[in-house]
């Protein structure tokens, strides 16, 4: 009798739980999971114009086409360069900034607030402001570099195939530094300071202190954040789309922007899905790694 009551109580609690999670979960399934699955499947089918209906199974036809597509190959190469440079620079500068903010001096709180600004500035605002700064005629960057005699004449930073990608990368690094800084700063502040005193007593050098105490203390956080940033950076769309649309002549083309343009400017939805899937495969390696790590830390 008691067992039966207990069971029915548990069932009622289960029903309550399912009712609570239903609305949120439903949205996630319909708007995040379904589009992902449907997108992957569509890359193996042909569809009538403007739809994703499965017309005919074409296997890896689109993938084969992409291997011949110079623009795609260019964008894949750019995306790898883009991700590696941005994440490394972001980590290096973010770490230096975090170390500087972890010291004790007057005005530290103000610096800490100011440093966060690029993170809060909306992507579109960052893109437009830097576009203005990069402007070939009136841009402040050309003015400063000319005043310092670093360049002879104005450069069309975003309009030249030589400099477009690099210029957007600088903007992306600028935007990405603050997040790394605060995450690393939080990790630095959780390091037990008595460790340093003990190490000093034992005659450890500054470099040994940094390597064995500081870096050891932020190692785990660093790896997780870098993984996450690799995924986010690879998928970054706003800056490139609004600054150059991948131009001039696709010199700054990256995978997410090319996916979007193929779908919504060239109206090749299935081919676009195939590009997206290839991007997902690249990110997937890091994603799986990240998920394994976050599950390990989670005591659910």
């Amino acid at each position: 009798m008691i067992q039966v009551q207990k069971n029915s109580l548990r069932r009622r609690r289960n029903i309550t739980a399912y009712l609570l999670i239903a609305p949120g979960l439903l949205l996630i399934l319909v708007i995040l999971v379904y589009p992902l699955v449907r997108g992957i499947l569509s890359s193996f089918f042909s569809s009538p114009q403007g739809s994703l209906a499965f017309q005919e199974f074409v296997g890896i036809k689109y993938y084969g086409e992409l291997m011949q597509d110079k623009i795609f190959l260019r964008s894949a190469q750019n995306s790898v360069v883009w991700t590696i440079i941005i994440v490394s620079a972001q980590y290096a500068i973010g770490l230096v900034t975090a170390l500087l903010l972890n010291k004790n001096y007057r005005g530290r709180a103000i610096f800490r607030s100011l440093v966060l600004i690029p993170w809060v500035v909306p992507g579109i605002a960052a893109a437009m402001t830097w576009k203005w700064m990069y402007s070939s005629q009136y841009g402040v960057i050309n003015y400063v570099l000319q005043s310092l005699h670093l360049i002879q004449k104005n450069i069309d930073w975003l309009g030249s195939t030589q400099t477009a990608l690099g210029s957007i990368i600088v903007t992306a690094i600028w935007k990405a530094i603050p997040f790394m800084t605060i995450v690393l700063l939080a990790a630095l502040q959780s390091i037990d300071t008595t460790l340093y005193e003990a190490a000093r007593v034992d005659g450890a050098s500054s470099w040994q202190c940094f390597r064995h105490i500081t870096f050891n203390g932020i190692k785990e956080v660093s790896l997780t954040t870098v993984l996450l940033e690799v995924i986010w950076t690879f998928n970054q769309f706003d800056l490139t789309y609004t600054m150059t649309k991948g131009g001039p002549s696709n010199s700054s083309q990256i995978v997410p922007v090319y996916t979007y343009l193929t779908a919504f400017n060239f109206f090749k939805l299935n081919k676009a899905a195939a590009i997206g899937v290839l991007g997902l495969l690249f990110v997937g390696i890091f994603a799986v790694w990240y998920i394994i790590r976050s599950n390990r830390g989670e005591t659910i």
Partner: protein
Amino acid sequence: MTRRQWTSAGKKAGIYLAISMITFFLVFPFIWMLSTSLKDRAEMFAAVPSFFPKKITFDNYVSMWVDYKFYYYLRNSILVSSATTVISLLFSTFLAYGVARFRFRGRMVVYDLLILTQIFPTSLLIITIYVTFAQIGLIDSHAGLTIAYCTFAIPFATMMLKSYFDGLPIELEEAAAIDGCGTVKTIFKIVLPIAAPAVAAMGLFSFILAWQEFMMSLTLIRSTRLRTLPVGIAMMVGFRDIMWGPLMAGTSLVTVPVVILFIYFQKYLITGMTMGAVKG
């Protein structure tokens, strides 16, 4: 001063110099944007640019507001962002409470799914979302855009709220249950008031997510009158001559509220937004 004090002073100067240089690099574009938006045409295109405007003018703001119809964009952005905040908070609170307090079958799957969605590439999702929304008539509607934004805000907000709920004592809720309080009533009367800081942080996160989002808005909204601020700004470029003054005014309009909100709620937001990564 002794030699030791000298090196210590030198070290301090070095730190100040280094942090000042980094801060300048990070803050300059923001100042340049505001400064440009307040300059008149002559000063904006002067051969020797001035750091701060010599004469402050609001012409660019007037032009942005009147000529470029930013009152539509601002209204739309406020509408969509507010709706996103309320709805996503409601859904993620329920979801987080369900995962935190109930031991149901499939709980781990739900949690893994939340983490997994954080890495889905939007540029792939948008293809199917666009086609599906077109089929069910959600294109060019604020409702459609809000639904999409809510879905993007829910996973992160849920994870953060769940870890907050995990840290709350369960006794109060048990007492409420004994007094005959239903689950939904318990959430509203007991849990939400205690979790107010976390809820506020996640509300702000959802608001900012919707406020600055670009790709969805660009794709799902077709008519000019329904556009949100980021797309409105992007549409000012693409003509042959870019009107930098009004453009920087519009850019300031989308940026300044977020910066103010952020500085005001800094403490909550930073803990909330970095927790996930640091915990890993």
